[in-house]
């Protein structure tokens, strides 16, 4: 077969990109190996470390090269590349090209890899004695991520998916499109028909979506550092020494990951129509759980550094939190969430790859937990054999891997119990370490509860594959698990909130009083004194808050308790900063973060607990009202004002600015006459239908959040629909299209009065009044008579009501035939929600992040001081 030379392709950036992928992978592989040797050997330490640094340098440059190549392709609209064709289009503004960059699975792993490389560069400069073991782990992760971008086929199984794959290779069917035959375009010129890409998912075309995923992935990437430190601690038998240098990094991971998650919340609030900033969606949960566990781990690290206690818990929390980061990516990116999430992403064949990544990094801590090198090598060999079996069989072998993992976990805990120095002196309840331990356990529980609900699709898969044969009949939990028919809770808000509210209460209370205790031993009398002072302030504010936020202490007592805990945390930390730290702000990072967190809790409880759907529909009499008691949407006809809560709202019409439809809704506040206009908008897309974007009016104490829920299909409107004829006499009344119409009377007038042409005709002018709840209009259709012959008629139109009237004489004296037509009115179905005091949430967020920044600076200083001492 003759080789076709394709025209108008730009192959250079793709080839360069491929080259960089291979180069970065080789460099990472060599670097990991050299760092490993540097960690293991005594004499060759510096030799191998220097080699490894060179390899890392090459790796870093190559990763930047991959990023640059891919961006160059997207930026120049080279749609001969599948990635650009799938995720971008010519009309896409430059800032959304960044979103195109990571919309696909390959791009998001590239982003992750990029952040690892950036973090690695800082680590190489900063770590000194910890560099070799920590960087071994980081570069191992880079090897796994790098293979995901490889896109080569080895022995029938393809390894990874290259972001530089050409469109004609990924989708060969495009070369044989009928269009090309009709227009007689040779295959070599296929680029003539590929003029534009399919574009970026409209949901992602929002400025928060430009920064939210990169931030989240930065947080994910940063969480490898505490993990790598903990592994290094076991590896080098420096069981506690890793904690001080790892702490600033752990805080960085906590801060960035937290910021990323909250940005996702803001995105949801600004551009999604699920009505809020948090919906307990699996994708949100999947990133929240590792965050909760890193926070718990970070607190146990601090606790251990100061008292020596709970070392094993610190290890386990840090290990598990990183594995959950991988698990979270697996949930989001593997498509396993399917129809259970509003934003589950597409399924590519990288899920098996991700599972292997998870498996490997779960086994690494188990390997280093063996303290004798013979056992270490033995277990490494076992791990490699299990991985090899998976690779050879070409699939993820659930049963074997699950059993092996279980064994590895048991061995890890056994090894840790044996080798970790026990810090337990006398156990006292009156110590700071005890209450920090309690707090960490509560955070862990909170994470586990969320994890359970979120993992249902995974339970289904595992249940089906292990218990499949035992399913039998019935509808028990076991049956549903074994047959893979479990679904996530249909009411996730209740399922999660019922537990999480109490976890939040206890965590907030603990952040309020734990700091008054000291490590090892505390003066109980002093503690009680300080606690009492913050308690008094809390009671006053809780009572005031209950009135201000209009909480009902009888039915909303849970919210009152949570508010109490929140205020307690604020004042406890405030007094601690003033008295315990003597007002030294640079030491107060932790306390400030606590205050921010507590303020967030209060903001959440008020804005969500007291959120008020004002578009509640009370007007219509429903036949089946009891089947669904709550109607949360309101129908607004164009130009017909309607009341909604304290507002009079009018839908003023719709405008289309490609690709967005804007719906203008005027609000008038009936309590004070102030007016404002909102433009809830939507994109209408072939695949996803109507994608509404809310528009929100912000006030200091509340937000009014409005979005359209449904609109009539735009191509349908404009046609007049004739109604059945009615035979009526003056004085009759009838209903038409939610209006009341009264046929008042008929006036007659000689035609000459109008014009000479009408001489001899007698004009009959019908007088109809049309009444709606808010206005009255009049219609005057006319017919003419010459002697007894009906000569002509004139239609009368009432534009505002969308009605037309015609009438003519009936067969009997005094009866008239009335013909009406109805124009379907432009309307929107809209939902409006008031979120009170949501600004407390945003303020709390900012304060918490500020607290993290202070804490990172302080911990960094301490880590440096420790290093100098050593």
């Amino acid at each position, binding site marked *: 077969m003759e080789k076709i030379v394709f025209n108008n392709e730009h192959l250079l950036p793709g080839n360069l990109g491929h080259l960089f992928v291979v180069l970065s992978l080789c460099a990472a592989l060599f670097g990991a190996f050299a760092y490993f040797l540097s960690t293991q050997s005594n004499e060759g330490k510096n030799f191998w470390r220097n080699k490894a640094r060179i390899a890392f340098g090459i790796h870093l440059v190559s990763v930047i090269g991959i990023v640059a190549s891919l961006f160059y392709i997207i930026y120049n609209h080279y749609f001969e590349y599948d990635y650009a064709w799938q995720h971008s289009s010519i009309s896409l503004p430059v800032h959304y090209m960044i979103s195109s960059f990571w919309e696909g699975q390959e791009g998001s792993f590239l982003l992750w890899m990029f952040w690892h490389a950036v973090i690695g560069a800082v680590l190489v400069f900063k770590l000194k004695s910890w560099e070799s073991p920590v960087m071994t782990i980081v570069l191992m992760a880079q090897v796994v991520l790098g293979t995901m971008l490889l896109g080569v086929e080895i022995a029938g199984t393809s390894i990874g998916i290259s972001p530089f794959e050409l469109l004609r290779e990924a989708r060969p069917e495009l070369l044989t499109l009928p269009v090309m035959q009709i227009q007689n375009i040779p295959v070599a010129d296929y680029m003539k028909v590929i003029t534009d890409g399919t574009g970026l998912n409209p949901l992602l075309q929002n400025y928060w979506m430009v920064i939210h995923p990169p931030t989240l992935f930065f947080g994910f990437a940063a969480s490898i550092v505490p993990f790598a430190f903990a592994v290094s601690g076991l590896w080098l038998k420096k069981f506690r020494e890793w904690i001080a240098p790892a702490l600033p990094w752990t805080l960085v991971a906590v801060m960035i990951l937290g910021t990323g998650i909250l940005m996702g919340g803001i995105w949801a609030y600004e551009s999604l129509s699920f009505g809020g900033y948090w919906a307990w969606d699996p994708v949100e949960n999947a990133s929240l759980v590792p965050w909760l566990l890193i926070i718990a781990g970070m607190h146990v690290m601090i606790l251990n550094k100061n008292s020596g206690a709970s070392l094993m818990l610190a290890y386990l929390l840090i290990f598990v939190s990183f594995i959950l980061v991988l698990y979270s990516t697996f949930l989001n990116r593997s498509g396993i969430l399917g129809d259970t999430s509003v934003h589950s992403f597409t399924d590519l064949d990288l899920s098996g790859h991700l599972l292997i990544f998870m498996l490997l990094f779960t086994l690494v801590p188990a390997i280093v937990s063996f303290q004798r090198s013979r056992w270490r090598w033995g277990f490494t060999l076992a791990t490699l054999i299990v991985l090899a079996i998976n690779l050879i069989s070409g699939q993820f072998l659930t049963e074997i891997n699950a059993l092996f993992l279980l064994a590895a976990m048991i061995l890890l805990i056994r090894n840790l119990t044996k080798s970790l120095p026990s810090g337990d002196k006398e156990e006292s309840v009156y110590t700071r370490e005890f209450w920090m331990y309690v707090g960490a356990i509560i955070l862990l529980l909170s994470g586990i509860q969320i994890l359970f609900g979120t993992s249902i699709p995974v339970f289904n898969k595992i249940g089906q594959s292990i218990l499949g044969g035992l399913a039998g009949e019935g*509808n028990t939990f076991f049956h*549903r698990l074994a047959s893979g028919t479990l679904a996530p*809770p249909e009411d996730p808000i209740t399922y999660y909130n019922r537990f999480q509210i109490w976890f939040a209460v206890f965590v907030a209370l603990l952040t309020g009083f734990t700091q008054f205790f000291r490590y090892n031993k505390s003066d109980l009398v002093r503690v009680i004194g300080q606690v009492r002072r913050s308690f008094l302030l809390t009671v006053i504010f809780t009572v005031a808050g209950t009135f201000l936020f209009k909480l009902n202490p009888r039915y909303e007592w849970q919210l009152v308790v949570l508010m109490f805990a929140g205020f307690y945390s604020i004042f406890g930390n405030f007094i601690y900063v003033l008295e315990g730290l003597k007002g030294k702000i640079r030491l107060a990072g932790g306390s400030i973060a606590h205050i921010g967190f507590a303020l967030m809790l209060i903001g959440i409880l008020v804005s969500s607990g007291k959120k008020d759907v004002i578009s509640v529909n009370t007007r219509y009499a429903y036949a089946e009202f009891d089947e669904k008691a709550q109607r949360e949407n309101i129908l607004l006809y164009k130009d017909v004002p309607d009341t909604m809560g304290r507002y009079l709202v009018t839908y003023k019409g719709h405008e289309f600015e490609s690709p967005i439809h804007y719906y203008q809704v005027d609000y008038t506040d009936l309590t004070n006459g102030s007016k404002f206009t909102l433009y809830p908008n939507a994109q209408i897309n072939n*695949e996803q*239908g109507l994608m509404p974007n809310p528009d929100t009016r912000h006030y200091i104490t509340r937000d009014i959040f409005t979005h359209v829920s449904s609109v009539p299909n735009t191509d349908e409107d404009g046609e007049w629909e004739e109604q059945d004829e009615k035979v009526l006499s003056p004085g009759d009344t009838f209903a038409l299209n939610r209006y009341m119409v009264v046929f008042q009377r008929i006036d007659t007038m000689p035609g000459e009065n109008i014009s000479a042409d009408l001489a001899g005709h007698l004009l009959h002018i019908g007088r109809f009044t049309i009444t709606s709840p808010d206005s009255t209009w009049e219609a005057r259709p006319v017919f003419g008579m010459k002697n007894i012959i009906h000569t002509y008629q004139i239609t009368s139109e009432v534009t505002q009501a969308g009605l037309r009237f015609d009438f003519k004489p009936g067969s009997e004296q005094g009866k008239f035939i009335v013909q009406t037509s109805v124009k379907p009115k432009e309307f929107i179905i809209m939902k409006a929600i008031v979120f009170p005091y949501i600004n407390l949430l945003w303020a709390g967020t900012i304060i918490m992040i500020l607290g993290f920044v202070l804490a990172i600076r302080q911990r960094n200083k301490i880590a440096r001081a420790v290093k100098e001492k050593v």
Partner: protein
Amino acid sequence: MKAKQIILLIALAVGIAALVSLYSEAGTKGNFAHSAKNPDREVRVKTTLIKEKGIDYNPEIDPEKFVFFAIDEKGEERKVICFTEKPYDFERSEEVVIVGKVKGDDEFVASKVQIKCPSKYEDEISDI
């Protein structure tokens, strides 16, 4: 018993409570026949819209109610009364996931609906 152990015991109890609550609150995927066997529980049913039978929606009367006919994966057909606003482009959808309970012999009352339209990719191919 040491204080830490008490805490761990309480934690274990709470963890078990969380599992139990999952046990009682997890939803079910199934078909109309499942739903008919468990009339008290909401079931998530994957169905296909029967376009020929039409869709009844009168927003002036009730913007949060529409009625259509659907057939589940086992081939059973039911009239579905859905108490939500009609999703845009519902007419065009193929796969419809409904969450609700059966009513009588031939109806199903849904409180949630999710639709899947023909994919973007296929559309693009046919556009070219």
